[in-house]
């Protein structure tokens, strides 16, 4: 019996996912636990493992295509087994997926995937409702993609061929044919007016320009006597807009929304980290290895409990207070940025917090974070301590009231008891939503973080 592979539903938020890469092709033998494909959700790229073994018989969804969750994307079975030519309609209610993301999410035990697949294959008369396929970052998959209505000028086939052969765009060419149609003579006149013959280009550069649809009238040549070289065409190619991946597009939208609709204000303090760093070294010698980050996050959690107004958000002329601290920690990845969330952070001991930080950061770097581990934060810390920065201000994550930007710790000359001494100083800047947080609250909050970090009695208690 062939088994249907479905697009898994990852967490509560995802409604559709994009297959970015198939690891198997039709005809490949599949073992349980083999990675079938990689999917990209709003927030992450995840590998999807097979729950069955057999041979990959059919795939319906190509790389780069987006389909609603629970859609059938292919079949696994025995060689020669019949499978539907078109995928069945996506089930309305979420049911068990026979493909699970790695790491596996919790799945209802009761539902049998095989029955599910049988039910689907037993109804071939159901109109082949191909899952609405859309390219990444386009309109929602449920709406039919609007047919692009690009207005191209009317042009004769000979004229079009000449323009193409010459690697020029025919759009700007005035047409003298019936109804303004561009005819071959128009192209010839245009080329001569534009001094086309005086634009030397190497043969390989011309081939490349034609293949890439680049108008060589807009290319400056860097070869002998201004001759256009392959390198010049490649430069134009490199300068063409490159569509963002889904993750980057969403980052762009959300940050624009936050920065343009939230009135930010910023408060900066400088913290003396000298003693805390000393304490950390001492702890390390006794076998207790805490990162600097864990101290900073704990200091933030304690300050948020003291200033619940900062752990809030604005929505439609209302303030929504959060009773828990779900702490986001902005983490840079090669291809973007993720914010894994430490849930109920106020309930964790320092050691538990450290363990959570390490686990989430590792998952983030390996691309193994689940969507639910990246949503629902109530406050975020962005730590650029290792990036050698004096100070910076962050943009508030949508759905939160404030964000703390932590800069590098650097040795500085400061005044203590009327004397200039060298101390390890670290600047922090809180960005706050002025609709719900006033300047004085922001100032008191960030000073509470600072005071916590400089309070050695506190850390001795927490690490004992």
């Amino acid at each position, binding site marked *: 019996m062939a088994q249907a592979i479905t697009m898994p539903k990852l967490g509560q938020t995802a409604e559709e996912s994009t297959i970015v890469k198939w690891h198997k092709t039709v005809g490949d033998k599949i073992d349980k636990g083999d990675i079938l494909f990689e999917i990209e959700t709003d927030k992450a790229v995840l590998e999807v493992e097979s729950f069955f073994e057999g041979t990959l018989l059919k795939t319906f969804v190509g790389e780069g295509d987006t389909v609603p969750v629970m859609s059938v994307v292919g079949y696994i079975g025995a060689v020669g087994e019949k499978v539907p030519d078109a995928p069945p309609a996506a089930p309305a209610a979420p049911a068990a997926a026979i493909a699970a993301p790695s790491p596996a999410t919790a799945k209802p035990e009761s539902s049998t995937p095989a029955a599910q697949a049988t039910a689907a294959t037993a109804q071939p008369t159901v109109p082949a409702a191909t899952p609405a396929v859309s390219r990444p970052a386009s309109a929602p998959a449920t709406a039919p993609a609007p047919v692009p209505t690009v207005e191209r000028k009317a042009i004769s086939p000979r004229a079009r061929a000449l323009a193409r052969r010459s690697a020029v765009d025919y759009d700007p060419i005035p047409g003298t044919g019936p109804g303004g149609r561009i005819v071959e003579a128009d192209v010839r006149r245009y080329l001569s007016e534009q001094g086309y013959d005086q634009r030397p280009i*190497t*043969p*390989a*550069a011309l*081939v*490349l320009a034609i*293949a890439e649809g680049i108008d060589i009238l807009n290319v400056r040549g860097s070869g002998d006597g201004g001759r256009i*070289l*392959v390198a010049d065409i490649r430069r134009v190619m490199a300068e063409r807009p490159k569509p963002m991946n889904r993750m980057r597009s969403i980052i762009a939208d959300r940050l624009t929304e936050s920065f343009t609709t939230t009135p930010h204000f910023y408060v900066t303090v400088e913290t003396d980290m000298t003693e805390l760093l000393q304490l950390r070294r001492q702890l390390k010698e006794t076998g207790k290895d805490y990162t600097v980050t864990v101290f900073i996050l704990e200091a933030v959690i304690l300050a948020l409990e003291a200033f619940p107004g900062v752990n809030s958000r604005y929505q439609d002329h209302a303030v929504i207070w959060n009773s828990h601290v779900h702490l986001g920690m902005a983490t840079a990845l090669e291809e973007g940025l993720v914010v894994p969330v430490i849930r109920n952070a106020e309930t964790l001991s320092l050691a538990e917090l450290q363990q959570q930080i390490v686990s989430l950061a590792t998952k983030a770097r390996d691309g193994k974070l689940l969507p639910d581990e990246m949503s629902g934060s109530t406050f975020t810390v962005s730590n650029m301590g290792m990036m050698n920065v004096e100070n910076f201000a962050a943009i508030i994550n949508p759905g939160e009231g404030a964000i703390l930007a932590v800069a590098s710790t650097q040795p500085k000359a400061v005044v203590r008891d009327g004397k200039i001494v060298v101390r390890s100083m670290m600047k922090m800047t809180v960005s706050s939503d002025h609709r719900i947080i006033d300047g004085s609250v922001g100032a008191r909050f960030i000073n509470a973080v600072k005071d916590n970090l400089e309070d050695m009695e506190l850390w001795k208690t927490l690490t004992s």
Partner: protein
Amino acid sequence: MENVDLVVIGAGPAGYPAAIRAAQHGARVVIIEREELGGTCLNWGCIPTKTLISAADRYASAMESADYGIQHGKPTVDYGKMVALKNTVVAGLRKGIKGLLKGNKIDHLTGTARFRDRQHIAVQTSDGIEQVVVAKRVLIATGSAPARPGFLPDHARVVDSRGFLDIDHLPKSLIVLGGGIIGCEFACMAARLGVKVTIVELLDDILTTLDTDVRRTVRDAMTKNLGIRILTGQALQDIEADDKKVSGRCGDDTVSAELLLSAVGRIAVTEGLALEKAGLALDERGYIPVDAWGLTRTASIAAAGDVNGGPQLAHAATSQALRIVDNWFGKERARLETLVPACIFTTPEAGAVGMGELAAGEQERRVTSGRFPFMALGKAMALGDTTGFVKWIADAETGQLLGAHSVGPHATELIAEATVAIRAELTVTELAHTIHAHPTLSESWMEAAEAANGHCIHLPPTRGRK
């Protein structure tokens, strides 16, 4: 103290053309050379070795002439006479350069240059007189010299490439330490004149800068046709020289010969220049670093040729030097050329320009290749030499010619056409459509281009026909 527009230090293939070109632009030029005009290339490199190789060619063809219906007595080698001829050729060329410098009114100082600061250069002549020249700009073109590893004994039986050219009789047997281009050229030349040759190379193969197919062809011919023993992947250890022989241990083997030629690479000549006085420092490999325009970090000072760490080839040096001088004194500015052909005068000869298949793989660039063996070429058969092939590397999408490799008869001459085609960014199709005169070895390029398109006339159909 003299004020001039340009001081050129070194009169090799970078220095003397630069001086002449600057003079053509109307600049006042002084050129400083501590040895002979023409540098390594003319005196102890390209020209003398090729003169000897040409003599070896004549000897080889005389040996084979019976196969072509020519009968004469058994040829013998008078190496002393070959060396005398070589010296005549070299002397003639040196005289030519001297005449060119004079004709262009270039002041030629014999002595060693030393920077006092970035504009003042002291020249110490052999008679102990010091002269100071003040220069607006300086081109350093001091070249390179054979590296002399410390483990080699200081003995008359151990020579470098320069020392080898001074000997007036051939040894009966020769160890060549280093299987690079210089080592292999000398090995082939000596082997063809009847010397028993052993090459010892530390790397896993000889001629590692060459395309793999080309390398295999050359190595096979060196072993099978010339009887050269090639030991690779092994260091030569415990080297000892005495009155009778020079010997060493190579793994489990003991090798010994009358002479050992050290060809383990070349190092930049910079000693005595006092570069630090001009604000310059050497890179970690001992070269003077330059940018894409050939300029050092002191903008009025450039370095061309071997001394800047680029390809150690005379023609690259000349091209760099001319470009630098044109940028300084001419109207148009441009970067140094990057497409440099390489010629290797082994037997068979080899040539290479542009991208190799290995480099294409490393750059994850999709390429196709087209190859044509001389075995299938009428002219090669008529010449009686069907060793080798030519090969194009082309961009898989556009057909742009990216690299060319040749091995076989006149392979070093053949690479010129490929160099022009690649620099002009021609495509395989255009090269294939270009009429090549028949019967010539050059036709092979056209056939190989056709092969890249899967349309070769003189090769059997291949499975991968497009």
